[in-house]
């Protein structure tokens, strides 16, 4: 711990010395129209823009692993992957597609290897509880997958081609056309890999690990008049994965995902009022083949309808917000009885910018449903600009996670008497905003009650229940800095998290929650040449609830290096790039007995016209 802190301190001091210009503009102090969900006044969020997405691998797992404090548990490259955000469980991170919560209704979590980041214009990571705005599962934090509609840019095309070790390929094409009134974009992405990498230090290879996926995303925006905008978003994802074998002679299995998302949005503005109406329909479908040699599979299938209405009212320095949400899930599966459930909620919010230096916000949410207890949620926070370079934020919130279809309706084992998990948290952020660099230090505390867990009884039968309470606290540091000297430009972003997440009864650290995680990305540009280096260090994790040392998964460090050259002129870019992944050939696993690849290579081409 001490060693990490010293390193960080050293690192940050070095960066402060560099006297650079700000990378992230944090001071959007004007209280004009703000969508409540975009607010970062009293919490912390990190925006991963298109340029960051392109330099990372296409899976959401890899993107977040190298750029955020989130620990990713990946069953081998490309296989099932789940997050631990701020010491929470896989189901306690909400993933939202253009504002719609897409966590699986059957498992409660999102498999981060079924999200292809090439289908989005930016990915935003919001730390901490967001239950009032993001709904269920936003306990450790939320991930926003966003498509952005641009206007008046004409015709644009972007082609990104990539090929690398283990026959890994990526083909991404995005075309967009926009006028002053209308905007249209269509993106198609195809990723695949034989994924037959060697397990370092053994004579085994990753057998039966091949995968491919296709993502199609489209958005359409139309400004009807000065006051009314209609937007439409659609996304189709199809993923086919064979599951890599835990042991060489194991039975070969595979897993197919098919997800669709579509949403119609109407934004209407008048002098003081802004209303936003959304209708969305998403479907999730999986098929698991326990033996690839046969056609037999088990499946889960849920369709979800969302209706969201939000009204903002501006009154001088005050913004009042009211919202109504309705969500219907209609699901069934091999082991799930067919069920339809209805969930509703009402939201009220107030933001008040008292003066140039002080802002507070309060928001409340009441859930309505007939299936289980409907919690009342809240969030409140302040932002105080203490000096020109130091801002203090305080935030507290109550958040929840609803029982999943599996928890409630699994035939024979589902438990209709489950309550939602509840999380009470408090957070303090210090934002240091110095020329060309910003440093955020967060401290938080989170108490999660009535964790929804499947636990075995004395006869070894697993059943879901509200089983445990968990206490989490931690410290995070987020740094970005940038500097240019003549034709040379440098940029650095780094994150560090110290996380203690303990079971209240046993006082043991939760499994797969590292005490330490560090990420660093350094970029260097000289004229048309750029180089970048990414580095993560994940601390050791326990894999057993008794924290037995012989079952610890070792800490590891993994680094990637990339080099690219822009052959283009003016606004057109023709980028030729190459990457070395796992540069130091580290042998590592993020889940026990699931080795990750050693050093491997790829080259890419990006045309943007």
């Amino acid at each position, binding site marked *: 711990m001490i060693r990490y802190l010293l*390193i960080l301190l050293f690192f940050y001091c070095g960066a402060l010395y560099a006297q650079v210009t700000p990378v992230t503009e944090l001071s959007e102090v004007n209280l004009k129209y703000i969508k409540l969900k975009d607010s970062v006044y009293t919490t912390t969020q990190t925006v991963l823009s298109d340029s960051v997405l392109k330099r990372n691998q296409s899976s959401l797992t890899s993107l977040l692993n190298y750029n955020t404090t989130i620990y990713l548990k990946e069953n081998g490259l490309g296989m099932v992957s789940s997050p631990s955000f701020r010491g929470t469980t896989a189901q306690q991170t909400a993933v939202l597609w253009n504002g719609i919560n897409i966590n699986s209704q059957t498992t409660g979590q999102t498999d981060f290897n079924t999200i292809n980041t090439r289908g989005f214009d930016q990915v935003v990571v919001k730390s901490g509880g967001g239950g009032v705005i993001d709904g269920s599962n936003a306990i450790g934090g939320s991930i926003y997958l966003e498509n952005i509609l641009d206007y008046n840019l004409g015709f644009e095309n972007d082609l990104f081609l990539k090929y690398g070790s283990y026959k890994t390929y990526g083909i991404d094409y995005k075309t967009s056309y926009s006028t002053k009134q209308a905007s249209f974009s269509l993106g198609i992405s195809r990723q695949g890999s034989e994924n037959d990498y060697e397990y370092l230090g053994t004579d085994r290879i990753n057998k039966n690990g091949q995968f491919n996926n296709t993502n199609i995303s489209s958005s359409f925006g139309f400004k009807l008049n000065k006051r009314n905008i209609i937007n439409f978003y659609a996304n189709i994802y199809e993923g086919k994965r064979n599951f890599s074998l835990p*042991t060489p002679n194991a039975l070969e299995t595979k897993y197919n995902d098919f997800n669709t998302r579509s949403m119609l949005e109407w934004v209407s503005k008048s002098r003081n009022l802004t209303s936003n109406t959304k209708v969305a329909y998403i479907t999730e479908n999986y098929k698991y083949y326990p033996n690839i040699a*046969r056609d037999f599979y088990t499946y889960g299938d849920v369709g979800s309808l969302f209706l969201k209405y939000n009204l903002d009212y501006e009154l001088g320095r005050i913004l009042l917000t009211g919202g109504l949400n309705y969500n219907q899930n209609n699901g069934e599966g091999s082991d799930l009885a067919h069920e339809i459930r209805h969930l509703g909620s009402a939201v009220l919010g107030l933001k008040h910018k008292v003066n140039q230096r002080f802002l507070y916000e309060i928001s409340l949410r009441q859930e309505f449903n007939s299936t289980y207890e409907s919690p009342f949620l809240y969030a409140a926070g302040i932002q105080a600009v203490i000096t020109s370079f130091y801002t203090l934020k305080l935030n507290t919130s109550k958040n929840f996670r609803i029982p999943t279809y599996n928890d409630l309706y699994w035939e024979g084992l589902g438990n209709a008497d489950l309550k939602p998990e509840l999380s009470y948290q408090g957070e303090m952020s210090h934002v240091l905003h110095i020329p060309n660099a910003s440093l955020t230090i967060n401290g938080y505390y989170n108490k999660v009650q009535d964790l929804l867990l499947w636990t075995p009884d*004395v006869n070894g039968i697993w059943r879901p229940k509200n089983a445990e309470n968990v206490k989490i606290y931690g410290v995070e540091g987020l740094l970005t800095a940038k500097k240019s000297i003549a034709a040379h430009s440098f940029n650095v972003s780094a994150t560090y998290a110290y996380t203690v997440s303990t079971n209240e009864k046993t006082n043991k650290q939760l499994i797969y929650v590292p005490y330490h995680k560090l990420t660093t990305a350094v970029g260097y540009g000289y004229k048309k040449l750029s180089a970048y280096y990414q580095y993560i260090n994940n601390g050791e994790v326990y*894999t057993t609830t008794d924290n037995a040392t012989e079952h610890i998964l*070792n800490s590891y460090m993994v680094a990637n290096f990339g080099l690219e050259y822009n052959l283009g002129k003016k606004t057109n870019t023709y980028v030729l790039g190459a990457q070395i992944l796992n540069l130091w050939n580290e042998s590592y696993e993020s889940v026990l*007995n699931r080795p990750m690849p050693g050093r491997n290579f790829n080259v890419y081409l990006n045309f943007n016209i």
Partner: protein
Amino acid sequence: MLAIILLLQNCTSDDRDIIIETPPPSGDYANGIFVLNEGGYTYSNASVSFIDNSGQVYNNIFYAVNGRGLGDVAQSMAFHRDKAYVLVNNSNTIEVVNRYTFESISTIEQDILNPRFMTFDGDKGYITNWGDPADTTDDYVAILNTETNIVINTISVSEGPEEILNNNGTLYVAHKGGWGYGNTISVLNASSETVISNIQVSDVPGNMMIYNNDLYVLCAGKGDYTGDETVAGVHKINLATNHVTDQIIFADGVHPGYFQIDNNSLLFTLNRDVFKVNLNDFTLPEAPFFSTNAQNVGVLYGFKISNGNIYVADAKDYVSNGTVLVYDLQGQFQENYNVKLIPNGFYSNN
């Protein structure tokens, strides 16, 4: 800056290998009892512990002797002459070792798919296999040549073959069920390698034991979670006629776990309690013989009477190292031993 980056490279802690424990002074694992720890599903951390008669525990002995892991979910173990066979269910392998030194002799991979239990007749081993667990028609008994360690034939059987016992060349296979739930005992002729008959029993036959020329079978019945709950039973089958000659039927909603027969008494587990049935009157007792409540068992996952002791395996929450609890034949708690992940069985090596 570069210096800092390089400095950061060194934060990885030293590798933490499985602790290698020194073998017993005699150099072999005789005069004691093996405990099979199945390990977590897909985590490949199955292991074998050995508790010698003085109470000394040796963990991870397969790894200590052979320098590699046992595999993914160790299901059961069987002895034949000087060899021990460890059936590794999700690895689809059988590890053949010397039963005293635990040195590896062979790893059997061919024609083994979801192996469950094993017995022997002459030079042949008979292994029950579920095959593809989701396929209810591909279950079989594999026949192993114990001289060559090669599977020489397979006998197709009905779904979910579990325990297998040999009575002078007649094999009894309990169809507990894998994907579904079974309710038969198959009778096989070991030399002709054929199924000769089926014995109808209650649902979910698990443990079987042969005692005084009778075969006893414990059927747990289908649990409430199956949506079709059925009653449990203990059946006594005459080995000469293969007919059920006596039985105990449990009350509705009562599902016993494991049983053992010792000194004309049948002991079975029910939740955290152990009940005792006198084989002479073969009726259910009112009150438990003893309880493991005081030892706060998480998951009661193994039960064995051996060398005058009653051994109970506590698998905790399936995600922690387990414990072996030892009781005397009067049900008095004696001591406990820390073993490894998910202990599921005991095999005396005296």
